[in-house]
């Protein structure tokens, strides 16, 4: 009886320990790997049109045109949506989940781009 209880306790401690260690480790790894990216809006286009970043990274768009643009997720429901960006205004979004995120300018829908989160 006594022995089996201590084994159970030991297993619990070991499992908990692993869980804590694992969480810390992945947290450190994600933060360490996060690579923020910049996308320029210039001449009615997103440049680069595709960016690939690790999960946890923040992407920032800056409008360099004389015309307002938006950055809007093409998915339903929308993963993100900027307000209207006038000249020199910025929009940032932090991508926490892996996946492929297509987006466009809702004012000029010919303008499209993609963020791939790994």
């Amino acid at each position, binding site marked *: 009886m006594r022995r089996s209880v201590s084994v159970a306790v030991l297993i619990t401690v070991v499992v908990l320990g692993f869980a804590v260690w694992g969480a810390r480790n992945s947290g450190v790894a994600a933060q360490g790997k996060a690579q923020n990216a910049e996308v320029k809006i210039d001449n009615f286009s997103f440049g680069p049109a595709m960016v690939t970043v690790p999960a946890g990274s923040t992407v920032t768009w800056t409008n360099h*045109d*004389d015309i307002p643009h938006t950055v809007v997720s093409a998915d339903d429901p929308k993963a993100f949506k900027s307000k209207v960006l006038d000249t020199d205004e910025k929009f940032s979004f932090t991508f926490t989940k892996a996946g492929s995120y297509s987006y466009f300018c809702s*004012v000029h*829908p010919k303008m499209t781009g993609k963020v791939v989160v790994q």
Partner: protein
Amino acid sequence: MAGKEKDELLHDHNHDRIDEDGIDRRGFLKCMAWAGTGAFCVIRGGVLRSYSFSRLPALDPKEMAGELSFAQISDSHMGFNKAANPDVAGTLKAAVDKINGLTVAPEFLLHTGDISHLSKPEEFDAVQQILKAAKPQDVFYVPGEHDVLNDDGKDFLDRFAKGSKGAGWYSFDKKGVHFIGLVNVMNLKAGGLGSLGHEQLEWLEDDVKLLKHSTPIVVFAHIPLWSVYPEWGWGTEDSAQALSYLKKFGSLTVLNGHIHQTMQKVEGNVTFHTAASTAFPQPAPGKADSPGPMKVPAEQLKSLLGITDVNFVRGQQALGVVDSTLE
């Protein structure tokens, strides 16, 4: 491919190819009036006559005056203040002066959208204030994409399209001519063009169902309802369906804005026309990296901005669309 089509259109603008009497012997004409120039096209007895702007002063004013006269302005972009035009209020005032100076006073105005640059209340206010000085006091608006940037265009609807259907479409009659204002700047899809949408198309089909085929129709909307240059989004993806409901009418005139330059295409009984902006010019299709505002020397600006004046003469079966620059 697109470039080749564009060149053909450009060549078609060469009015020198039309015989001295103004009759296009090929029976088909696309007159494209680039910014700063203009063309006056009249359909009379089924024959299209085209007059270059330089010949206009020689025309009898009575020939141009109609039973119904109205003017179109577009793309006033109030709030824009960049190098391409730091004074869009000043050029809108110049457009009002131009309208007030027309030989035949227009009965009302159409504004084909992009009233404001950023949908701000003070931008809408400024345009309404400036247009109070226009002799025609009735103004019919449709929204441009710059007018519906916030709250799905609710402010636009409240101010400019009270009592309209859906996102702001409506129709009305003036002296036997049926006018239809359409909205093609809402719910645009990634990678797509202007869009009318199912609900509006159904309304349109219903709206014209009981009209006689002899009723002249004028359709106005912001983004061109013909394929001007899809690469820059200068077209409407479901415009063909809209036109299919309208082609049975003997006289159909389609007035648009959005591309900040005058352009005209005549196909059978349908005349497509885009108006100049009152704010800033944009490049000819494909002639720049992007359709952004075109910076020109200050002294040239007013020659690239303008208004459009439309005259309808029932007895003569004539409909004239005339562009004037703000110079």
